[in-house]
C-alpha cells in the first residue's frame, strides 16, 4: 500500500488515458506528461500504461507500508526517501515504513511542474471503462473518482514487488533533455492548423505564431488559458458542437486562446485555430503556470515524424532498461 500523508495536493491517479468512451461523453483524462508516466513504468519493468500518481502541487509525501520498488519521473522535485536524497528518473527501493518526500520542482535544466510516482506492478485501483485514470467530472475512476486526500491508501498490484539485484539502481535521461524544443529560448510546441484557422485575421495569425504566450493562473488539467495578443476572426463565427481532443486551441469571444488539456470536455463549440500535436502535449503539460510557450506551425508530415521520434524514445528506453534488468 501507499499511504498519502499530504493534505490538499491535487494529486490524482492517472494512466495513459481512457479511450473508446467518447460516444458517451467521457473524455480521455490520463497523464499530462505521458512520456514521464511511461518512462517511470519502463524503469520498473511495468506495462507502460500502469497506473501512477500524478503530483502537480508540492510538497507531497507518501509512506510505503510494504517493501516497494518505485520511480519518480517528470519534474526533478528533490525527492528524498526518509533523509536520503534520491536521483530523479531512477528505479529505487523502499522498505516498509519509509516516507517519500517530494519538494518544489527545481527550475534549472528543465522548467517542469508535474511529477509521477510509479510503483512496481502499478497502482491496483479498479479499472473503469477500461482505464484507471481519474475522471473528475464524472467522479469515477482512479481512486474513488477524486483527487487524493491525506489518509488515502492505494493498493499496489503484485504487492509492491521489490526489484531484486538488477530491478533497481538504473535511470533514464529525461526526454526534455534529449529532445529539446525551443524558439528564441522559449519552450515550444508544434501546432497543426484546425478548421477555423483561415477565418482569423492575418494579424491574429501572425501574432499567434510569433509571440510568446503566457500560461495564466487559470490553467489546469481541463485547459490552459493563455494571455497575449487578442486573436480575432474576420467575422463572427457560428459553431455547432463537435468532437475535440486534448491540444485543441479554442478562441472564445474574449480573443484569448484556451488549449484544451487532458480533462477537457470531449466536445466543443468555440472556433479552433489549431491543435497542439499529440507528440508535444507532454511539453505543454509540464510548462509551469506563469511560464511562456511558443507555437511552431507544423505540416502533417512533420507531426507524423514527431510522433515517430517519441515512439523511438520509448522503444530505446524499453530496450536498454530490459537489457539492464535481465
Amino acid at each position: 500500500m501507499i499511504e498519502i500523508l499530504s493534505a490538499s495536493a491535487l494529486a490524482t491517479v492517472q494512466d495513459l488515458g481512457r479511450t473508446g468512451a467518447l460516444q458517451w461523453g467521457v473524455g480521455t483524462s490520463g497523464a499530462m506528461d505521458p512520456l514521464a508516466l511511461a518512462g517511470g513504468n519502463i524503469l520498473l519493468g511495468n506495462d507502460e500504461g500502469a497506473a501512477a500518481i500524478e503530483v502537480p502541487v508540492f510538497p507531497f509525501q507518501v509512506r510505503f507500508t510494504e517493501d516497494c520498488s518505485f520511480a519518480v519521473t517528470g519534474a526533478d522535485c528533490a525527492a528524498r526517501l526518509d533523509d536520503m536524497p534520491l536521483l530523479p528518473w531512477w528505479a529505487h527501493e523502499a522498505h516498509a515504513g519509509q516516507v517519500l518526500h517530494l519538494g518544489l520542482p527545481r527550475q534549472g535544466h528543465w522548467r517542469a511542474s508535474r511529477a509521477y510516482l510509479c510503483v512496481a506492478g502499478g497502482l491496483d485501483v479498479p479499472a473503469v471503462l477500461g482505464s484507471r485514470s481519474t475522471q473528475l467530472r464524472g467522479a469515477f475512476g482512479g481512486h474513488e473518482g477524486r483527487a487524493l486526500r491525506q489518509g488515502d491508501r492505494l493498493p499496489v498490484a503484485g504487492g509492491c514487488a521489490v526489484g531484486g539485484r538488477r530491478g533497481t539502481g538504473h535511470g533514464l535521461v529525461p526526454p526534455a533533455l534529449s529532445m529539446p524544443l525551443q524558439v528564441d529560448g522559449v519552450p515550444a510546441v508544434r501546432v497543426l492548423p484546425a478548421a477555423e484557422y483561415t477565418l482569423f485575421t492575418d494579424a491574429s495569425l501572425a501574432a499567434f505564431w510569433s509571440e510568446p504566450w503566457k500560461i495564466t493562473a487559470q490553467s489546469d488539467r481541463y485547459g490552459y488559458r493563455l494571455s497575449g495578443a487578442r486573436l480575432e476572426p474576420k467575422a463572427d463565427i457560428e459553431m455547432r458542437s463537435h468532437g475535440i481532443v486534448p491540444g485543441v486551441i479554442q478562441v472564445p469571444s474574449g480573443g484569448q486562446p484556451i488549449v484544451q488539456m487532458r480533462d477537457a470536455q470531449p466536445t466543443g463549440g468555440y472556433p479552433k485555430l489549431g491543435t497542439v500535436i499529440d507528440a508535444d502535449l507532454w511539453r505543454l503539460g509540464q510548462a509551469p503556470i506563469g511560464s511562456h510557450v511558443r507555437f511552431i506551425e507544423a505540416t502533417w508530415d512533420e507531426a507524423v515524424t514527431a510522433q515517430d521520434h517519441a515512439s523511438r524514445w520509448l522503444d530505446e528506453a524499453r530496450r536498454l532498461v530490459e537489457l539492464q534488468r535481465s
Partner: protein
Amino acid sequence: MTADTPSFSVLGTSALLFEAPGSTELKTQQRIWALAAEVGAWPEVREAVPGMNNLMLSLAHTPRHLGDIEARLRSAWADIHALPLQGRLVELPVVYGGAAGPHMADVVGHTGLTVDEIVERHSSPLYPVYALGSHPGYCYLGGMDPRIATPRRRVPVLSIPGGAVSIGGSQTGVSASDGPSGWNTIGSTAMCFFDPKRHPPALLQPGDTIRFLVEKVIR
C-alpha cells in the same frame, strides 16, 4: 466548407473532423449516424463520435498520408443512406425558473417573451437525441424552438449542478453532473444520465427522444 460540400479537417494527429453542409437537421444527423457505423469499423479508426451534424474520427493510429482517408470518407458520405434510429421516449419533469433557473431573466431579456411563453415553447417539442458529448451522459438535442434561442453567456458560470436545463444559442440540453457552463440555465430536472457500472454506461443514446414536462413554474 462550401454550401453543399462537407468539410474535412484535422484535430492534430489524433483525430479527423468531418462536417456535413447545410443547416442542422435530423435527416442529416441520421446520415451521420450511418456514417459513424460504417467508418467506426475502419482499422485506423478507434472510435467514430457523432456531433451536431458532424463526425469526429478518433484515430487508433496516425495515417502517413491524409489524402486516402479523406477520399474514402467523402465517398462513404456520398453513398450513405440515413439510419433512422428509433429509440425510447423519455419524459423529464422540470421545475422552471426561480433558484432552479438562475438565467431565466436573461432569456426573457433576449427574447422579449414572458416566462410562461418561454416555458411553453421549451416544453412543447419532442427533442431527438442527436449525440452524446460534453461530459459523461450529456445529450445534445435537436428540435428547440428558435424563438427562445439565447446566445451563450460571455462569462461562463463556474459550476451549474447536474440536472440543470439550459439554452445555449439555438440548442438546449440537461447537465448530467456538476460543472462549468456557458449556457443559460432555465430549470432543473432529476434524472440519472450516467452510471459507469452499467453497460452501456449512458442511460440515453442517439435515436432516443426527450420531452420536458412542466412540473412547476416559479416566476
